[in-house]
């Protein structure tokens, strides 16, 4: 299966060529090479997927980077169900979004740059998922972070975009620091950075404890928590979630590809990849579940208060990522991956739909503000239809992708062996309702009612996007429906192929039911399904009443509970809290250090303290006549004398 | 063994000391005993008995240095020819070739100086 090396390298080649020659030679044709390369990656990934389904596996090193005794670092590929699934998904979505961008980025002066960056991103992401060792995982991890930084700040002339890029970069550094420590600890513990070696020997540390600041901690807990720090940064989980909503400053295809479908799910992928380590530690699993629940709930409460269409979807992404971590936190890794997979399709579709709407509204001063939209279904039917499918899918309406994956998570958490399973189920069900509500709030505010943006558009009519944008929407809409059918549960007459496919890597969760309920397993599952569907339908219904039937109800919450509304509208004040507790003190300390230490000690002390030797001053000839060369010789001679004295000391 | 080896050099040390002491003594005794009657001619620079004309710290044309350096280079290189010539019949053909190479390299330097106008006064 050596051909898999071309899956990441095709986009890399395309990115390099586009980056070097784009500005002068390729310019408006810059999309060809990346699109073809990514399509090639997709075909190869699909072939790899078929091969893996046929039973093939591969684990090989392309070449060794550094070999030094026990430390062996290489660029290598591990092709198993988990990685091949990610490869196929990433390359497929990346291809669609490349195509969509041809239309979306049409008149941008940085056209070639954009395509070079997203191809580079595709390369990094494919390297990340196909790695066979932790170091390459870390490399991909940093590389996707770098691309994300470049693309958030793509319109770097805009101050908000530059700030958002910086914020994403800095917040991710916190997570990555922990992640790097985790990788280092893995190497120290197992003496290898290969997944194969590490996971084969992971049971050896099942009872090993280490002393951290006086507290005995399971070594597995320590490693898992450190690794999870990275996941919290990359997948924007509480408390490192603050960068993702701001990242919407980037171009919309970027939001769809990087900040919804692929990069932000890298954390989930990593947790699943390392599930052997996480499973050793209940504490780590609890932390994963807790982070997931808090993020899931928090984001779902913030989303209904926002008016920026992309921000609502961004909070929705946070919330759905929370679902995935909740699944991981109850040991249902395959369910988490399933949700990751279906979510990638419907969330990319939501973003691209939003991008299509923005394309229509681009004459408005703020093309993302939903208060100036409304009634758009008349102007852009394809966008409306696809957006609606995605919203139904995310709301968990039966038959669509989101329904199957979400119910898999809820069911497996309800019957989980972990004590917090029921809590996870409860939070998940509540959030399912909230999700349906805010998703349809967007649908109704944008596509229903009267068009409210006549004045801001200055006479321009909103219009449907070109077919280069709508065709990807339609393909994704198909994906947002059918991807769910890969994992139809047994209770609905399916075979749950998805979980079976991943079972060799991820295992399967233990179902923990009281024995007297065991026979009624199917009924419970159906009952839970009914609850979540009911909650979802209820959410849609409430949204319909509030935003279509009786718009005056919209003012109910802000007027009755102004404090609560302000709290939610200001995103639980996390930005302000971080600003007060971390950003400001850091700036203050840094400034004090710079002024106090660097200026007064380094500059004053060193420069003025060792005058002629290091200060560049005066004209050169004067120094020569000053006899400095004699000083030089004197210093040399002194040094020689000292070295010669060493002869007698040693 | 070690001690006796060092002892062997003791006479040299003593000789060096005696020489040093005598030299120093002569200078000091001169300073102490000699009469001091300075007059202006004694402070003048010595120019073979003639009254000095102009400053002693006098700037020379750089060309003198250039010629002097060229002279020194070729003169010193020529010295290498003597030991070669003396042992010519013993070291044979190999040394002959070596000397040809050596002179060829000298010629390169010579031509270089010539081309760059090193031999022209103006």
């Amino acid at each position: 299966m050596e051909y898999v090396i071309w899956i990441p390298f095709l986009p890399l080649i395309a990115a390099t060529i586009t980056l070097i020659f784009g500005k002068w030679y390729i310019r408006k044709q810059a999309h060809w090479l990346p699109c073809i390369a990514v399509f090639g990656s997709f075909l190869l990934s699909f072939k790899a997927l078929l091969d893996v389904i046929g039973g093939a596996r591969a684990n090989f090193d392309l070449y060794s980077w550094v070999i030094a005794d026990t430390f062996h670092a290489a660029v290598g590929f591990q092709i198993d169900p988990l990685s091949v699934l990610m490869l196929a998904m990433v390359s497929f979505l990346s291809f669609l979004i490349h195509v969509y961008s041809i239309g979306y980025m049409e008149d941008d002066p940085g056209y070639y740059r954009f395509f070079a960056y997203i191809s580079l991103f595709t390369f990094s992401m494919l390297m990340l998922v196909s790695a066979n060792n932790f170091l390459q995982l870390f490399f991909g991890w940093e590389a996707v972070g770098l691309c994300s930084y470049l693309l958030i700040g793509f319109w770097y002339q805009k101050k908000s975009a530059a700030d958002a890029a910086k914020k994403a970069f800095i917040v991710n550094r916190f997570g990555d620091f922990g992640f790097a420590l985790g990788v280092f600890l893995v190497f120290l513990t197992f003496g290898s950075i290969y997944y194969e070696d590490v996971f084969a020997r992971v049971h050896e540390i099942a009872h090993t404890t280490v002393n951290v600041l006086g507290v005995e901690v399971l070594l597995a807990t320590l490693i898992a928590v450190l690794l999870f720090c990275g996941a919290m940064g990359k997948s924007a989980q509480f408390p490192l979630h603050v960068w993702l909503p701001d990242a919407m400053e980037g171009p919309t295809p970027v939001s769809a590809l990087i900040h919804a479908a692929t990069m932000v799910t890298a954390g989930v992928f990593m947790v699943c990849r390392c599930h052997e380590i996480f499973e050793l530690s209940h504490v780590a699993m609890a932390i994963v579940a807790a982070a997931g629940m808090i993020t899931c709930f928090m984001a779902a409460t913030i989303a209904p208060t926002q008016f920026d269409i992309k921000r609502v979807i961004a909070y929705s992404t946070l919330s759905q990522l929370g679902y995935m971590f909740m699944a991981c936190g109850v040991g249902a890794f395959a369910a988490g991956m399933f949700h990751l997979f279906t979510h990638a399709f419907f969330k990319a579709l939501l973003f691209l739909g939003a991008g299509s709407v923005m394309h229509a509204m681009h004459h408005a001063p703020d093309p993302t503000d939903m208060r100036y939209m409304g009634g758009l279904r008349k102007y852009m039917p394809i966008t409306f239809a696809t957006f609606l499918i995605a919203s139904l899918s995310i709301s968990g309406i039966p038959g669509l992708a989101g329904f199957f994956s979400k119910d898999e998570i809820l069911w497996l958490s309800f019957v989980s062996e972990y004590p917090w399973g029921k809590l996870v189920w409860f939070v998940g069900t509540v959030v399912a309702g909230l999700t349906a509500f805010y998703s349809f709030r967007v649908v109704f505010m944008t596509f229903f009612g009267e068009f409210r943006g006549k004045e801001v558009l200055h006479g321009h009519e909103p219009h449907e996007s070109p077919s280069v944008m709508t065709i990807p929407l339609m393909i994704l809409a198909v994906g947002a429906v059918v991807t769910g059918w890969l994992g139809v549960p047994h209770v609905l007459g399916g075979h749950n192929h998805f979980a079976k496919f991943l079972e060799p890597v991820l295992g399967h969760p233990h179902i923990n039911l009281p024995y007297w309920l065991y026979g009624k397993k199917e009924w419970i599952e159906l009952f839970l399904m009914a609850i979540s569907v009911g909650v979802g339908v209820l959410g849609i219904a409430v949204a319909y009443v509030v935003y279509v039937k009786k718009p005056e109800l919209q003012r109910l919450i802000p007027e009755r509970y102004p404090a609560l509304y302000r709290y939610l509208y200001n995103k639980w004040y996390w930005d302000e809290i971080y600003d007060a507790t971390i950003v400001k003190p850091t700036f203050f300390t840094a400034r004090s250090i710079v002024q106090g230490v660097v200026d007064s000690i380094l500059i004053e002390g060193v420069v003025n303290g060792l005058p002629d030797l290091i200060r560049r001053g005066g004209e050169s000839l004067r120094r020569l006549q000053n006899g400095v060369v004699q000083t030089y010789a004197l210093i040399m001679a002194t040094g020689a004398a000292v070295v010669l004295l060493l002869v007698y000391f040693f | 063994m070690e001690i006796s080896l060092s002892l062997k050099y003791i006479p040299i040390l003593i000789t060096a000391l005696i020489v040093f002491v005598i030299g120093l003594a002569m200078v000091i005794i001169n300073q102490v005993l000699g009469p001091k009657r300075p007059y202006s001619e004694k402070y003048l620079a010595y120019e073979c008995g003639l009254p000095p004309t102009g400053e002693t710290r006098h700037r020379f044309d750089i060309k003198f240095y250039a010629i002097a350096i060229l002279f020194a280079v070729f003169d010193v290189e020529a010295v290498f020819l003597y030991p070669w010539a003396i042992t010519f019949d013993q070291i044979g053909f190999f040394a002959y070739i070596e000397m040809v190479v050596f002179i060829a390299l000298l010629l390169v330097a010579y031509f270089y100086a010539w081309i760059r106008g090193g031999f022209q006064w103006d």
Partner: protein
Amino acid sequence: MWSSLPSFVAVYPEILLVVVASIMALADRWVKLKDVFAWITIATSVIALIMVFAVEGAVFGNSYAADTYGLFFKMIFLLALIMVTLVSPGYNRMVGIHFGEYYALLMFAVTGMMLMASSKDLILLFLGLELMSLSVYVLAALLYSDLRSLEGAMKYFLLGAFSSAFLLLAITFLYGLTGTTYIDVIAKKVFYPGLADNTALLLSAALFVVAFGFKVALVPFHMWSPDAYEGAPTSVTAFMAVGPKAAGFAAMGRVFIEALYNARVDWVEYLIPLALVTMFVGAILAVVQTNIKRLLAYSSITHAGYAVLGIIAASREGMAATMLYLFLYLFMTIGAFSVVTLFRQKDFLGEEITDYQGLSKTHPWVALVMLIFLFSLVGIPPTAGFIGKFFVFKAAYEAGHHLLVIGAVLASAIAAYPYLRIVMLMYMKEPEKDLAVNVTPYVFAGLIISVVGVLILGVYPEPVINFARTCCAGLIP
């Protein structure tokens, strides 16, 4: 008659360089298009590089050996020559020193270095060192209308002569003790118990440390280097920062590792304090520099401190690490200096660090290339600089010098600051003036070679590491 002549095949590369250099020095007057000299230099270096790989054997009564150890260093010297030649046409035309003698002097200097790397006799080593040094003194003074150039070259020359005296004294002591100047024979005569702990031998080793310390600019014998680097034409500075330094290390390998291997417990003790002081002083003084050439001078001092760690390890692995370090250092240093040459205009030096302010906005490509070199100089993976540091640190650590390695890591943390300051200026500040860059096809090619070298060797260093290991295998019995 001709058959009685010994074979000179082993020195054919050097002979080629000397002949071509002589012809170029003479031909300068009649050649109007001076770029021709650059072409000839590159062609000659490439041919010499091929020849270096082809020839082997010993000549001149075994005082010169074309062995694999010399081969590795000759590869460094000739690559440095090629890359410096690529930098030169554009820059030298701008400052008015674009002529045949320049290239001839470069080639003479490289010949001297090659003699040093392959010498099996201390006298030949001294001869090579002087040939190299005299050529470089003249090169440093080429901008003779610029007082800085003259001053730097003058200091370099005076102090260089001073250090040559130390070298001769060291050779004299060794000759007095062993009765020979042949490195092989000395290596056989120095052993425990006996000559290896003789005080006079240790004095000789200490004097070698001083003399080579000067050539590779170890503190406190580095005093000449910031002035000489700043004053010399930048193309020459690039050459000085790589060539003579690598040659100094080649000679160190010959003397310390090959000849005095059995006395290693002692000379290692002299080198350790020097290495520590070098790394820290270089790193700290780089912080306060405002001129980029001076900054890179201190940077090259610091890097000499790292490279010497491999010698201190006194093992095959250590020597291989030092050789690898010098090979990687070649690309990043000449690359960084090449970028510095781009900003030189007739009436504008472009050497102040503040000139780089906002470079990413005005010349994003130049800024990116500089960023790669700076990251490599700091030692951030996956650039070549990281690989180099990793292996020297590892070699020193395995040799048991744990505290030294901790010191080296600390020093490299300090040393990162001045480079990152430039990065900060380039990427975080708004440009104040619009700099013109002077990119010729030559320097463009040179920059591509350096960037590719820095990145490829950072990602795939294995062949070079293995080659270095093979090359220094014959050094230690």
